[in-house]
């Protein structure tokens, strides 16, 4: 057994244990503090209608699970995009895919408001497939635009383009909401703040299958993606059909990032930094080895940030993206200073 495999196994086990600990803590901590025993009892008495069971199963567990699968999915999407664009700072957020998803979702919400009376259900539940479809289409549009531009511009230009697309989407969303009514604007703003807390049990019917497909896609694409680390020509010389691989990777990225954006809002930094943490922990760039580590670290990071937000604060001003920015931004600055290709400007 090689040293790399042992290291992967150790890292995987440690991360799994850490994830379970943070999950348990997330179920225990909140405005009502529960003991570990309470949590187990609550999980064991699903449907009993007891207070503890309602807090654990109905209120906290959906949020915890959403953070776990959402964080994992965003981490994986980041890994796929960093490999596809050969850009260490690419992810669904930094390249504007999330902004596209937000814009798509906003369009659907506003269109629903204008078109039909069913819109209230969409607005309140966020479970409507229309929002998911709008978000997926928005993400897809930006993803296609980005992959078309990626071949013509350098690493840093692409990131700036992504940022600008983000601002553009924010502007358009503002304009859209301006011409609807105030309550819609408030609801949209709440969604826009990115939180896993809006996810309810019913949402998993949509969320889980899409993310599972995206995960499956990542695993299947791991081998040719590893070849793509060397660039298009080397990958082709190793028997990879590069144009087809690009399409499939984009598809998997959208399956992973768009549903999370639709249900949880634009969660920043997770997809950007998690693949780097995974590479650092494993000391490897092989995609096959990075997939489990990336998913686990993404889950731990998203859940830990969510836990900080949901500590029993007296006031509720803390946002998920604020916590993630405090961790993510310094890491990104470090990466910028260390990376040869980024420091040089174009590369």
């Amino acid at each position: 057994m090689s040293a790399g495999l042992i290291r992967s196994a150790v890292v995987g086990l440690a991360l799994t244990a850490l994830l379970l600990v943070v999950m348990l803590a997330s179920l225990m901590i909140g405005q009502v503090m529960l003991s570990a025993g309470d949590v187990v009892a609550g999980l064991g008495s699903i449907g009993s209608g007891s207070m503890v069971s309602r807090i654990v199963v109905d209120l906290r567990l959906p949020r915890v699970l959403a953070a776990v699968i959402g964080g994992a999915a965003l981490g994986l999407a980041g890994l796929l995009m960093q490999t596809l664009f050969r850009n260490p700072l690419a992810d669904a957020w930094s390249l504007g895919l999330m902004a596209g998803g937000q814009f798509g979702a906003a369009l659907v919400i506003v269109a629903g408001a204008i078109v039909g009376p069913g819109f209230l259900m969409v607005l309140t539940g966020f479970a409507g497939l229309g929002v998911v479809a709008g978000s997926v289409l928005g993400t897809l549009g930006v993803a296609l635009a980005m992959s078309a531009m990626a071949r013509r511009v350098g690493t840093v230009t692409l990131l700036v383009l992504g940022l600008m697309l983000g601002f553009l989407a924010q502007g358009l969303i503002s304009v859209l909401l301006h011409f609807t009514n105030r309550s819609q604007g408030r609801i949209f703003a709440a969604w826009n703040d990115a939180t896993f807390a809006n996810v309810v049990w019913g949402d998993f019917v949509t969320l889980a299958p899409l993310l599972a497909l995206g995960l499956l896609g990542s695993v299947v694409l791991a081998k040719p993606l590893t070849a793509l680390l060397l660039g298009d020509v080397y990958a082709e010389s190793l028997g990879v059909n590069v144009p087809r691989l690009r399409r499939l990777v984009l598809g998997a990225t959208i399956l992973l990032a768009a549903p999370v954006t639709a249900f949880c809002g634009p969660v920043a930094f997770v997809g950007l930094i998690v693949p780097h943490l995974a590479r650092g922990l494993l000391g490897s760039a092989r995609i096959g080895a990075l997939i489990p580590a990336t998913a686990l670290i993404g889950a731990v990071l998203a859940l830990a940030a969510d836990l900080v937000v949901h500590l029993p604060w007296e006031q509720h001003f803390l946002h998920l993206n604020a916590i993630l920015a405090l961790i993510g931004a310094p890491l990104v600055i470090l990466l910028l200073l260390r990376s040869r290709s980024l420091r040089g400007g174009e590369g």
Partner: protein
Amino acid sequence: MYAIDALQIGYGRRVLSTLDQVTVEPGEFICLLGRNGQGKSTLLRTLAGFIPAISGEVRLDDRPVRAWPAAERARKVAVVLTDRPQVGALRVRELVEMGRQPYTGWTGALSDEDRAISTEALEQVEGDHLRDRFVDSLSDGERQRVMIARALAQRPQVMLLDEITAFLDLPSRVTITATLRRIAHETGVSIILSSHDLELSLNAADRIWLLPGGGRFIDGAPEDVALSGAIGDAFNQANLVFSLQSGRFEKRGEARGAVFIDAVDTTAFWLQRAVERMGFAASNDAEGADLVIGHSAQGYSLEGETYPSVQRLSRAMGCKTAREA
């Protein structure tokens, strides 16, 4: 192996060169020469099956190269390029093992045989000590050796290398060229290396492919190609010509005068170089020469003066010509 028939290479409708009947045999070390823009990379890409030929065909094992399924072709043809991709936390061992991708299943899991072949490939380029290094920490020369090992791990019949020595210093170029020649002869893999190192290629190659421009293609032993005068046609410039006497490029122009060199062995050889560099011609006869250079334990003598070094001598000769002119 390769059988090329009436192949026209180029992009779109622009034909860069035409190759009539060319075959490549196992174990040949071929250097592909030509100035930029004459189609070296295009020829290699066409041979690799990455781009279509304009007309004619490249057959690889009796089947058009682009008709092979990508994975099967990857077991026959491997490439090494000039570019130095940034690969992050990838180790040399992992990079070389990537060469086994055409043989592994969809998970990319390696068998013991795959690992053994990768190890052997790294040994063939004398890179076993680099095994656990990160690829991004390697020098340019080490990196290209490792890239060659990765190509060898594909167990190809042909390796196509596109100006892989372009970024390297001279010792690395010489070493890598010698390594490739050895690998071709020892393992029977045919190697086609495009290069700008004319003199190095002429010394090392079994066979030269020359793209001299004008759509021509010249194929032969280095000596055939040199004697045909094609190297001069391809590379000569207004003031620099390929000398068939010395096998190197020399300055062209009217000699400033004839110099007789009164010295022996290596001193004579290097003094002749200095004299030619100064634009004089070496003369065999002291009587007809404009200048005579002598050599003694004190240094080099010219017209009664003695100079301790060739540099001082050169300076004196420079003044001499200036005055005469």
